[in-house]
Every structure is written in structure tokens, then in C-alpha cells.
């Protein structure tokens, strides 16, 4: 099993969700996060005062899938989240040791 963690632009969430739906991914965890990478923060001036956005709002998606599915998922996310501009985000892939469904105790891919 793999855990796929993707940081994307907020307005791309619906596109990504839809794209993943197409390949039968039903569940995911999302969070509103802030941060920066190559896309740096910036400042805006309003009436002489400076407003700094040093951490840019992004969305983090976390999905655990079977190892066979991982590549397809990554590709879908990359396609859907891509605008060609800076700040499109990153995708990380982790190996998952075990998954357990709390209600039933099912394990492994049955639990995801």
C-alpha cells in the first residue's frame, strides 16, 4: 500500500477530486494548509500599509491506495492539478505498513 500526499492549489481541489473519482478512488482526507516552496510569499500595499502573505494557502490531499493503483492516482492528480504555473504543488509517495479499519478490524487493502 502507498500513501499519496499531494499539495495543490485550492481552486484545483474539485478537479482533482473529480479526476480521482473517475478511477474509482472514493475516499480521501483533505486539509487546508499554508506554506511556501519555490512560490514565495508576497506583499501587498494597501493605503500605505504593507500586508505580507508569507505562507500561501494550499490544500493537502491524503490518500492511501494499493501499490498497483499508486501510479494511476499520481498521474491523475498531476494532470488535474497542473496549471503550468509556479505553485502547482508537489506529490509525495510513502510506503504504508498496515491499514486497519477501526469498525471491523479488517486489515490491509480490505481496510482502505
Amino acid at each position, binding site marked *: 500500500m502507498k500513501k499519496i500526499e499531494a499539495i495543490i492549489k485550492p481552486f484545483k481541489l474539485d478537479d482533482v477530486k473529480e479526476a480521482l473519482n473517475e478511477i474509482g478512488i472514493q475516499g480521501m482526507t483533505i486539509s487546508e494548509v499554508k506554506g511556501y516552496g519555490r*512560490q514565495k510569499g508576497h506583499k501587498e500595499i494597501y*493605503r500605505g500599509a504593507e500586508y505580507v502573505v508569507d*505562507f500561501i*494557502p494550499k490544500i493537502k490531499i491524503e490518500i492511501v491506495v494499493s501499490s498497483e493503483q499508486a501510479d494511476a492516482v499520481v498521474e491523475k492528480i498531476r494532470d488535474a492539478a497542473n496549471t503550468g*504555473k509556479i505553485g502547482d504543488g508537489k506529490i509525495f509517495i510513502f510506503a504504508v505498513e498496515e491499514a486497519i479499519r477501526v469498525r471491523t478490524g479488517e486489515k490491509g487493502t480490505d481496510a482502505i
Partner: protein
Amino acid sequence: MTKPYLQISNKLKTDREKLIASIDRLPVIDFLQSHSLILDSYFQQSFEESMVGPRIGLNKNPYAIIALGGYGREEQCVHSDVDILFLFKKHIPDEAVSLIQEIIYPLWDLGLQVGYATRTLSECIGLARKDYEILTPLLDARFICGMSLLFSELMTATREKILRKMSKKVVAWLVRTNAERHQHFGDSTYLLEPNLKEGQGGLRDYHTMLWIGRIKMNIRQARDLEYFGYLSHDEYLTVTEALSFIWNVRNRLHLQAGRKIDQLYFENQIKLAQSLNFKSTNGLQPVEKFLGTLHSKMDFMKQQHLMFLREHALTRKPRYKIKSKKNPGIESIRTKGDTLEFSSSEAILQQPGLLINIFEESTRMSLPLSAEAKRMVSEFSYLVNNRFRSSETVVESFETVLKEPAPTFNVLREMLNTGFLVKLIPEMKGIANRIQYDEYHLYPVDKHLLRTVQALKRFNSDLDESGCSLCGKIWKGLKNRKLLLWAALLHDIGKGELGKDHSSAGAVITRRILKRFGYQPKDIDTVAFLVQEHLLLVKIATRRDIHDEETAIHCARIIKKISRLQMLYLLTVADCVSTGPNAWNEWTATLLRDFFLKIANVLTKGELATQRAVKASEHKKEIVLASATSKAGKEELEKLYHYMSPRYLLYTPDEEILTDIELYRKLGDRSFVWDISRNRMVDSRTVRICAQDRPGLFSQIAGSFTLNNLDILNAQIFTWRNNLALDIFYVKPPPDKLFEKEHWERAERDFQKALAGDLDLSAKLAEKIKTRRTISPKVSKVPHRIVVDNHSSSFFTIIEVFTYDFPGLLFTVTDALYRAGLDIWVAKISTKVDQVVDVFYVRDFDGQKVDSEEQADAIKAAIDARLPKIV
């Protein structure tokens, strides 16, 4: 279990089953009472058949079985606790344990929740005196069986030994614990998962009123609340109705959950709405109607409870201070203690304006209305008609209430609670207690509107919950707060019109309301605009790329004026803050603020959001689409139109756009195409170059021209969204006109080579300039000036270069920019005599502004190093 007991408990079981089966036929009050009676008869029969009972000896040590709490009040829901007291006159005999085994155990076997206590009379009084948690169930005590005299003794002792001596203390405790309970369980009239019993507006509020009545006036039945003047006749009827509804919900909730439960969880709501027979109408789900009704009933209970406490001066000392001892400025309104009241009901009949005057005075003096005054407002609000609504003084009074700065008590809410607000603005009827069934909206629509008004007024104060200091600053500087407050009060009013987009419907209703109140068309436009667009900022900020300039321009064009943007932003934040915790957090705040600042920038600095720009882009869309010859062609053109940037559309004449489209079609896979045209009036050529954009493109064209003695007079760069560069050069033809064509062809070859990396333009040019001439001695000695501006645009760094003309200038500057890692998105080059002003909109190769001081200085130095030194 012996036989008679088995029979008795079986009977209880079947009786309860029968009762439960009749739940849809029986009014809930009868159900609860019947349930209590069924239990009573169980206790009576067990008492009669008891094997242990006779051994205790009723005469030697009299005892009684007494119902307490809800069971005592005969309010027994399906799974309510059965609270029982075994009361003994003198001492608790050894047999008591077996007695309880006999009577209580079968009930447990049936799955009933039984709480019992075994006490002597003196124990009972002693404990109740010390612990009021034990006292309150006694207030509801009801005799079931045994020695009835003993029960009377208990009641007398409770009254004489406890209540008479410390009624004040007990009442104060009741009020305090109930307030604490509200703190803990929340305000049921707002919550999506309200607690039917413990929350504010729940059954405990009613119990508290009843208990206080019992303590103070020794009332026995709920009906006596009216008899002793605690409630008016109408109020008593409405309380009974509200109670029945809440009981009904609770009773069915117990049945559904199969256990005692007071919290109305999401999972139960849909089924309950069904079992209570709510039907879906006008697009409202049954569950939404159900929750709306429940909230309104609980709200009534809450208000009644608050009024009750207030009337009996049982609330804690008011937090607000009386501003002055002055009397109200209006004759027929006077103060009564810490409250305001009407001098007489006749006065209202003669002068209906008093109905709003009292709220205005309440605002001005920071004094609430007395319970009686609120009652009178409710009862006389039928006097509010269209003439009343359009009266100038009424509008002024209402504005005073609306504008009242962040208050410690909320006059608007009082207006809503008395029903006056709905009379004043009848359109609000459609949204009173309207629930939206999702986890996002925490409050019914009408409460949400009032909270939004409140949130606005809290900006720039200690009570501000938005955490947004910019909002406070804008609010402080805002000129026409009145209009914004109106928009806050009305922004969701369209939710009463089902099946329509609530923003548009709301704007229409808003116009109607404000027109009736006599507002100026200009003001009506502003408020209607705010209502119409109140979701714009949130929607766009979350669904579009706010780091794309066009997103900001798109919004700026809709909003048009900075003052409107400010109001819309404040409304958006206040709306989010008042919706619920899921709608507002720091993340959303950052996103919205950033977006606001970007639009503000476009509106204050840019020419792109002007009327003219909007008209130009509309006109150009027509021109572009009109050039289509087929349907497929039209679709392609529509796509192309969307690629064209706002600046391009604003500055490019109609026919040139068409030329550019032709060029784009010709481009195909080629690295560039160009079109050279002669200008009739002046001896110059216009070269339009269409190419896939890449860093350094512009400098390479400029270099190729200069290398071939084509002097550049003027130039512009536009970039389409599909990464297409359109560079337009106005060029002086070569002196040698006969061979002009050859010049162009050479330039084209050079450009191609440069693009392919086969030609080092800067080396070639340096060589050429050296051999040709040195800098003209005529040139002015004004030093060059390079300005890096990061303020004027949120999306580009703007670089202005003021210098004098010299051969290869444009190449030199743009090449310097390219080498500094900058991509040119827009350029305006103009030459006046020998003074040159070049403006470049640049970003780094990643598409970001270069806005640190060091970067700006580095750019300046890089350009400066390439400009000729002044001797």
C-alpha cells in the same frame, strides 16, 4: 419471581407496548400522562400484592411510594428515568431491601431506567436542605401509593423547613445552575444538534419557571403559571404548544434510539421529520422544516424563560450601565427600573410610531424593554402598515437601531423576537427560522442575518471575532456604513424564495424593501449590488486562481468602485464569521484578504477595470466573433478571444486584432511569423511578430533589427494566455529603400539564427556599434534613471527606464533584463526626440514578481551597467 408479580410486570409490559403503538393517534400530553399512569398502576398493584410490605407494618412504620421529577410531573417519555422515593416515617426497616427487590427489579428486567431512593422523612428534608439537586425533584413529587398522610407531611416539611426559610437562595441557585447548563449545552435555538432538555430553550427552561412558581407561589399545576400572572393567556397557550412539540420530538427520539436521549443528533433528524409527518414543500426538505419549527418553538421557550427571569428580577445585575438617569425623550415612553415601557396601551393606538420609538430609545439609552413592553409591541404590531413603513421618521428610527455601535445587548434581536422586525420588513417572514440542512450553516437564516450585522459592528472593537485587522481599518474609514448594514441585514433574504438563486432573488427583494422605505436610487443600487454579489469574493477566491491577474480584473470589473469593494469585503468576512466555524478560519481569511488586496490594486491603479476597458473588450469580442465564416470557426475564435489578455484587448485596434488572428493561424509549428506593413502618414513600418513566448524573445528581435540598420521607434509586447507573444515594432525603414526587402530578409535570417542560438547578438552588435559611431555628443547629460515599482501591480514588477536614445538601446536594456532572469510580459517603448521612456512589466522565469529590495537593486545595477556612461 412469584406468580402475581409476573402478572403485574407482564401487564406493565403489554400496557406500555399498547401505548407505544398508539403514538401516532394520541396527543403527546396524553401519551406522557398515560405512560405515568401505567407506571402508577404497576406500583399500586405491586404494593398491594407485596409479600414484604405487610411485614413492615404500615401502621407501625408508615411508608409511601412517591414519584419524583419528570415522572412526578407526569411527563414520562418512552425512555425517561422512573424516579421513585421510598419514604419511611421513622426509620428504614431491614425489610426495605427485599421490598425494593420485589418492586424495582422487575422494572429493570423490562429495561426501564429506574432511579430510587430509600429515605426517612427527616433524612429527606436534611439532605434536600443541603443539596438542592435533591430538593428540585421533591418539588415535583407526586403520591402514588402507601400512606398518603406521610406524603402530606413531606410536602409540608419541604415548604416550612426549606422553602419558606431559604426561598431566595434556592431560586438564585436554580437560576445560576440553569445558566451554567446553558453554557455547557449551548443555545438550542441556534444549534444544529440541539439538546432538547438541557440546552437554552429546552425543557429545563420550562421546569425552572415551574419550580420558581412552586417555590414562590406554591403553584401545583403548570396552568397556575397563568393564574398567578406569570404568563399571559396567549403566552400560556403558546408555551403549551411549544412544550407539546418538544415533548413529541423527545418522545419519538427515545423510541427511535431505543434509549433515553436528549441530544438531537444528525442521524436521527431525517427519520424524526418523517415520523412527525413533515412533508417537503417548495423545495424545502422535511428535515429543514422540522428543524425550523423546532428552533422556533425552542426560541419561544428561551424568550419566555428570559422574560420570566427578568420580570422577577432574577437575572444577574445587567452588564450595561445606565447612561443617564434622563427620561426618554418621548412622552409616552417611560423608564421602569432598568427597563423601558409604554405609559399606556391607548398611547400606542393613537401613535403607532411609539412601537419603533421604544426601540430607538432602547438603543439611545442602552435600556432594554420591559417584558410587558415587549408583549405590547407584539400585540400591537398589527398597526404596522405600508404608511407606517414609508414614514420618514420610522426609517430614521430604524437606522438609529441599525447603526447602533457594537452593543452589549442587541436591540435588533429584540425587534426580531417580538415579531416587530418581520412586521416592519414583511419579506423577512420567508426566512424566519429557516434552517439549511448542512454542516456549514449553524444558524437559522434570520439569526444569521442579525449576527452578520453584529459582526460588522464589531469590526475595529474588542469583540471582533474575525481576527482581521484590515477589516477594522476599513470599517473605521468607511463613509456610508448605513448601506453596508442594510446589505448585511438583507443579504440572505432571497433564501425565502425557493428554487431561485438566492443572491439574485435577494437583490430584487432588497430593491423593493428599500424603495418602500424611501431610499435614493443610488443607495438602493449599492445595497442591491452588495446583496447580489455577496458570495462573489468567496466563490472566486476558492474556485479560481487568485494569482492570475485576470481573476482580479474580472472581479474588479464587476465591482467597479473601490468603495463598493471595501463594503463587499467587509460583508463577506462578516457573513463568513456569522455562518459558523466551518466557514471561517485563518486559512480562508488569508485567501480572502490577499484577493481583496489584489482587486483593490487593480481598481485604484489600473486602467483595466474602467468602464472604457469593459466596453472595449465587449466591442472587441463582437469584432472577433463577427469575422467567423463558419460555426466551427466561431468556436475557435471564441477560444482565441479568451486567450487575449485585457491589456491587449484594451490597446489593440480592431483591424489589428484580426491581423493578429491571421498571424496566429499562420504560425502553426513555426517558431515565429511576422507581418510588415507600411504606414501611410509617416515613413515607417509596423512589424507584428507572432511567436511562442520564451524568455529573451523580445531582445532577440530588437537585436536583429538594430543589426540590420532598422531603427526601432516604438514597440509593444502583449502576451496571450496560451503563451503566445505578440510583439509590435514601429520601425524606421532602412535609408536604402531600394533594397528594403533584402534588409528585412536579412533581419529575419538573423532572428532565426539568434533563436536557434547560432548567433551571438550582443557580440555582433558591440562590434557594429564600435565601428559605426560613438555616442553623439549632442545628447543631454541627464543621468539615466531606472525605477523598479512593485506597488502598482500585484502581479508584475514594473521597471521604468528613463534614458536617451542610442543605437541598440532596446536590445541592450531587454538583454540585460533577460540576463537578470526576467521575462517581459508587457512593454511600452516610446521615444520623444532623444528622451526615451521604456516601461516593462516583468516576472521571473517562474512567473513571480521580484519584490525583495536586493532583487530590485540588482536589476537596477544590471541595467545601469549596460547603459553608456555619461562623460
